[in-house]
């Protein structure tokens, strides 16, 4: 049984289990102690509590110094004051110190209005900085997806924790000492030369503007306003359950119709849906998967199993960097975003009868890594990318605000046809386990030749970091592995590599929770329940869809009959599949 501890916080008695931090003990009786470096992804076993910022200091009677509430565990009989004069003065001074070494460029900062330091300064009523002095100066580091504006770094170490513990990527850690200490890559080289996989969880975690996504809104506006360009937009499944938060709606609010309406008002010529391409992905990846399983069952020793999903660009970068010996295992299917781009700039382009250079494809993604993905050379034709620009959910919200659109009073509208039609199977791509569930729905019917009556595979759903399940394909057990968060992916992959476990198929998403917890989503500031609400909303959206299996999408059928021919056929092989590269030299450099 849990041992309980009694203590007094601000003259209130509180009883909490042993091992509880003062921060949580106070929260349990409604006392909010401000924090900055503290960051927890509840349920994901990720906690950053270096006790570094000293904002959460409280007075513990009998102790010489103030104690950081986040890193101090409760003890029997403790008497704690969370806002005595001594505490308030210290807290204020600490924040003032931070501000004294922080550029006061709030007006133009990517995190303005969402910055936790800004909020804190406001809450503490800081109007003046007593201790002025030298400010640190570092160069800005631009990568295809992430900007590091290190001058703004406050050494909270959240990025370091997510990069090393959650993602096990190891691109970021503290460098230098004293006043010059910041979080950076090894040898302070450019992020793009580091082992960074551009997953962007550091951007999601950074409380200030030291890490932000590259802003592509300006280019998108230019394209929209260019009369010669036909601008096509596609939106990823996870965006519709999250963007409402940017307009004050509850996390998990489903605003698919308003989002389509807003995109149309912004001036996109065709408002399509990445979900369409997700259905297409299932056709290609599902076929590839069944092909491999079929060969395996017939005793083909050369076949590579498990097949691994390849929708997530952070994950693709991760295995290219850390598992170069396994490059032939992931599905060769492009991600839905890239499939959409390839189809838009071939099938739809031909239908419209316009030139490739006159079409601009914009994607709205819950993701930062997608900015990198759309710039990959293999996704370009004569230098012209299949997807021109990828915006995050947050950037779309900014765009909507820039166009003076009152989002919340918009009517619900539909996507355009044909590339806007999708099934419930496509929607669940936005949550961990969703891709593999969607693939299962289709693969089951093709494999068994029978109709799948119950489409909900609850055994594949959930928030646990690594999940394993066996699905019965009419007597044939199919072993499935699921991981979200790259650290969990590493655990699963290492098991496979060592031959400890066998799977037919594995789904990996780089971000915790899958795309709903993507780095391009509205900042959750460590409140992971927001991600869980988006997660739930994804499955509600699926439930309400009239069609819930990808192969039933009539426009997908039409695309194959009119244009592509067969899934995994010659044309789709050319348009919808890709190959991977060994990027392990990025790690070797650091190891040396």
């Amino acid at each position, binding site marked *: 049984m849990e041992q309980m501890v009694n203590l007094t916080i601000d003259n209130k008695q509180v009883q909490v289990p042993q091992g509880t931090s003062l921060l949580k003990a106070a929260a349990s009786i409604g006392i909010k102690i401000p924090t900055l470096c503290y960051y927890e992804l509840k349920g994901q076993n990720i906690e950053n509590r*270096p*006790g*570094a*910022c*000293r*904002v959460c*200091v409280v007075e513990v009677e009998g102790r010489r*110094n*103030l104690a*950081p509430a986040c*890193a*101090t*565990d409760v003890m029997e009989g403790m008497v704690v004051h969370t806002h005595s004069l*001594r505490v308030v*003065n*210290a807290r204020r*001074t*600490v924040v003032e*110190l*931070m501000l*004294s*070494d922080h550029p006061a460029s709030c007006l133009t900062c990517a995190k303005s209005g969402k910055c936790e330091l800004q909020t804190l300064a406001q809450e503490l009523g800081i109007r003046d900085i*007593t*201790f002025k*002095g*030298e400010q640190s100066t570092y160069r800005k580091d631009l990568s295809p997806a992430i900007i590091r504006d290190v001058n703004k770094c*406050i*050494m909270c170490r959240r990025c370091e924790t997510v990069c090393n513990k959650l993602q096990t990527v190891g691109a970021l*850690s*503290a460098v*230098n*000492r*004293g*006043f*010059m*200490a910041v979080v950076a890559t090894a040898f302070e080289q450019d992020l793009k030369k580091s082992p960074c996989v551009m997953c962007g969880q550091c951007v999601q975690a950074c409380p200030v503007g030291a890490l932000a996504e590259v802003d592509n809104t300006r280019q998108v506006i230019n394209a929209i306003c260019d009369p010669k360009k036909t601008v096509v937009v596609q939106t990823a499944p996870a965006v519709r359950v999250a963007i409402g938060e940017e307009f004050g709606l509850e996390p998990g609010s489903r605003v698919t119709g308003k989002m389509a309406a807003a995109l149309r008002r912004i001036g996109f010529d065709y408002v399509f849906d990445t979900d369409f391409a997700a259905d297409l992905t299932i056709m290609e990846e599902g076929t590839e998967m069944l092909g491999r399983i079929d060969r395996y069952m017939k005793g083909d020793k050369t076949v590579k199993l498990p097949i691994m999903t390849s929708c997530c660009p952070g994950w693709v970068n991760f295995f290219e960097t850390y598992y170069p010996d396994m490059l032939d295992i992931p599905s060769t299917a492009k991600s839905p975003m890239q499939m959409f781009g390839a189809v838009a700039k071939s099938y739809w382009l031909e239908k419209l009868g316009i030139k490739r250079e006159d079409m601009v494809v914009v994607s709205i993604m819950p993701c930062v890594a997608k900015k990198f993905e759309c710039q990959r050379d293999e996704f370009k034709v004569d230098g012209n990318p299949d997807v021109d620009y990828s915006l995050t959910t947050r950037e779309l919200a900014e765009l909507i605000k820039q166009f003076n659109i009152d989002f919340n009073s918009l009517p619900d509208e539909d996507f355009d046809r044909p590339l806007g039609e999708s099934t419930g199977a496509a929607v669940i791509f936005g949550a961990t386990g969703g891709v593999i569930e969607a693939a299962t729905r289709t693969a089951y019917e093709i494999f068994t030749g029978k109709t799948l009556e119950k489409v909900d595979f609850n055994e594949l759903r959930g928030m646990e970091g690594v999940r394993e399940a066996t699905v019965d394909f009419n007597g044939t057990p199919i072993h499935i592995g699921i991981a979200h968060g790259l650290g969990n992916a590493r655990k699963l992959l290492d098991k496979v590599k060592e031959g400890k476990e066998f799977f037919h198929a594995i789904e990996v998403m780089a971000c915790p929770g899958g795309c709903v917890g993507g780095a391009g989503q509205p900042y959750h500031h460590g409140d992971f329940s927001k991600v869980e609400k988006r997660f739930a909303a994804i499955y509600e959206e699926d439930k309400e869809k009239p069609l819930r299996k990808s192969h039933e999408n009539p426009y997908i059928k039409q695309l194959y009959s009119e244009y592509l021919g067969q899934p995994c056929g010659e044309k789709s092989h050319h348009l919808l599949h890709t190959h991977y590269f060994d990027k392990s030299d990025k790690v070797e450099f650091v190891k040396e």
Partner: protein
Amino acid sequence: MTKFKTHILVCGGTGCTASLSDKIAKNLKDNLADKGLENEVQVILTGCFGFCEKGPIVKIMPDNTFYTEVKPEDAKEIIEEHIVKGRKVTRLLYTDPETKEHIADSKHMGFYKKQLRIALRNCGFIDPENIEEYIANDGYEALAKCLTEYTPEQVIDIIKKSGLRGRGGAGFPTGIKWEIASKNHADQKYIVCNADEGDPGAFMDRSILEGDPNSIIEAMAIGGYAIGATKGLVYIRAEYPLAIHRLEVAIKQAREYGLLGKNIFGSTFDFDIELRYGAGAFVCGEETALIHSMEGKRGEPTFKPPFPAQSGYLEKPTNVNNVETFANIPIIILKGADWFSSIGTEKSKGTKVFALAGQINNVGLIEIPMGTTLREIIYEIGGGIKNGRKFKAVQTGGPSGGCLTEKHLDVAIDYDSLMAAGSMMGSGGMVVMDETSCMVSIAKFYLDFTVEESCGKCTPCRIGNKRLYEILDKITQGKGTMEDLDNLRNLSKVIKDTALCGLGQTSPNPVLSTIDNFWDEYVEHVQEHKCRAGVCKALMKYVIDPNVCVGCTACARNCPVNAIKGERKSAHEINQDACIKCGTCIEKCKFGAISIK
């Protein structure tokens, strides 16, 4: 085995080595060989004698003749006169500053009279690179006693009863630390020697390691036995090559003698030691930072708990003790807890080693019983202030300590009294200052050090100390305000209150103690733009008295920046904007016409 009649001990500490003591030893040997005495007289390079002010030191045994400031060319005379003819070389003997008499035996010198060498017992006495000399002086007997007569609990009990407290600075009772580590069970535990001595000017630990490395090895083995650790690690600064070398030699010899390794003294206890090199970061002396550094991680502290005794090196129970703490262990085991606790004050037992430095006559390494007063150290052991100047302050505890003044001179030194006086014991740095020291500049000096050495993890230390430094700099530039003084005090208090580790929590001490004890001097800097010690250049003004100046042009010709103008045979004038206050003009003026205002 050769039996030598006479031993010549030559100090082989880093300071004397820098003054060519190895050359002295070589010359002594060569001269002995010339006389055919190499089998009768042995020359030994020892550890530090402590009296660095008068180094290099050469001591002749058994007649205890103590030669000071010996040069390599003196070797011939020492051999010919002292060894061959039996006549002391008077000119190399120490001269008592008061009586002007030569003193041959060190125990009669003011510098040594009040000292009690326990931790330094073998320094300057044995050859640190020869384990047999250590063994001949009761070395490894304590370990043998522990392994054959005592249970680990009994060992811990002895250390607890002795009252030994950690010599690294914080003064935590060593026995209790061992007890906690012994009670945390694990498949592997570690005992670590913290040899990351980092206080500016401090060299206590280095001297012990250079002079008596085996005592540390023995003590670590005893500690390992007590807490149940089979592995010892010495975290030592890579900047201590001589200490590293001697430790390596000692470890190798101890292994050869079976004093490290499996089944030591036929017991079931296995123990071995490895070295880990520090890169010289001051903060790595903090035990959690030290452990991270040993693990190959960034050397920065983490919040305690968990304490190293619960989860330390490689997340195993780890006990970290300072070099000097370890140096006391074997002798406590041999002579008993009662003997040790009879020395010192009520709450601080035994002795403490200090590196005595600054404006004092006898600079060096000293070891005194706890309870000795600052006055005794400065005026008796230290021989008073240099050049007959007036005492102003004494800084103890290094960058974490504070500056004490005249009124504290009769404080009996121990952990608690120094803390109460506004400073701290620290690891044993002691810098004496006279009236030529500016206390604002002193505070700035220490802050410069902590700003440089902060790991940068927590906000108050990373940014707060930088701001403290900037305010102090502003004051020394004559640009400070009274509000700055308030800010200094307030910010210092917040940093102390909120910083994560011992470094940050103590870094404002030099500021607070100088503000408290030398408030007038701060105010003078601010209000009168005056630095009474004449240290803050920005506050100084060189002025030519037109009534005294004869216009010889010597000053103007020698001024490196052409700041002095004037016609020949008429009074000159200094352009204050151009003057760099180098002092050349004062030196060159034969008429005393130039003064500092």
